């Protein structure tokens, strides 16, 4: 029987979009059955357009910067866009996949993507905001699969 991986994706920034999609697509390649449950800001990763995902250096002292930059400078308008632009450039330069590509790879390999119904309602999202092929469900839906999974991760 195939191994199972259950992920919760709770964050909606460009950097945190990578772990769930990388792990899910790789697990699928290793013949795992995979489900990702998207909740709160993670729902952003299921939107049709994910090209506007951003990364913020603000309040993130662990982010490598070309020059040391205090929070006071990072809060200047435009800094977030600049950091995002630089990150995207690096991603392209290093041959790292785009989020669109990784998500497509997940769908293609049969990874089940589930949007948390409660947070969809909370944020007033519409089903048509999201890509095709996803499902909607609650915590009990997650546990139905997670309860019999070999690996469970909260991201």
């Amino acid at each position, binding site marked *: 029987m195939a191994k199972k991986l259950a992920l919760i994706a709770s964050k909606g920034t460009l950097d945190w979009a990578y772990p769930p999609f*990388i792990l899910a*697509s*790789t697990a699928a*390649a*290793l*013949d795992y059955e995979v489900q990702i449950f998207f909740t709160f800001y993670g729902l952003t990763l299921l939107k049709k357009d994910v090209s506007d995902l951003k990364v913020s250096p603000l309040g993130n002292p662990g982010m490598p910067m070309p020059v040391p930059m205090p929070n006071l400078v990072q809060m200047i308008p435009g800094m977030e866009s600049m950091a995002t632009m630089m990150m995207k450039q690096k991603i392209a330069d*290093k*041959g*790292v*996949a785009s989020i669109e*590509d*990784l998500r497509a*790879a997940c769908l293609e*390999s049969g990874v089940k993507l589930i949007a948390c119904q409660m947070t969809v309602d909370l944020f007033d999202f519409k089903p048509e905001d999201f890509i095709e092929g996803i499902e909607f469900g609650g915590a009990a839906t997650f546990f139905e699969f997670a309860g019999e999974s070999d690996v469970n991760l909260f991201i």
Partner: protein
Amino acid sequence: MEFDKELDARGLNCPLPILRCKKGLAEIENGQVLKVMTTDPGAIKDFQAFCKQTGHELLSMEQSESETVFHIRKRAA
């Protein structure tokens, strides 16, 4: 070494070489050999782990300065 299909994954980074390899294996018959060229330094460990977990046979792994070439035989079933 002889192979049935060649896959160029040079310039791609984790997890793309593995994802492409998986796709490549789906396009050949059981028992056939896929050749994969990579530049991702992480591929060396990843391809061994991939083969160990999926049952495909890692026939060879040739490292040169900047590239690693793998030959993988698709598992019987």
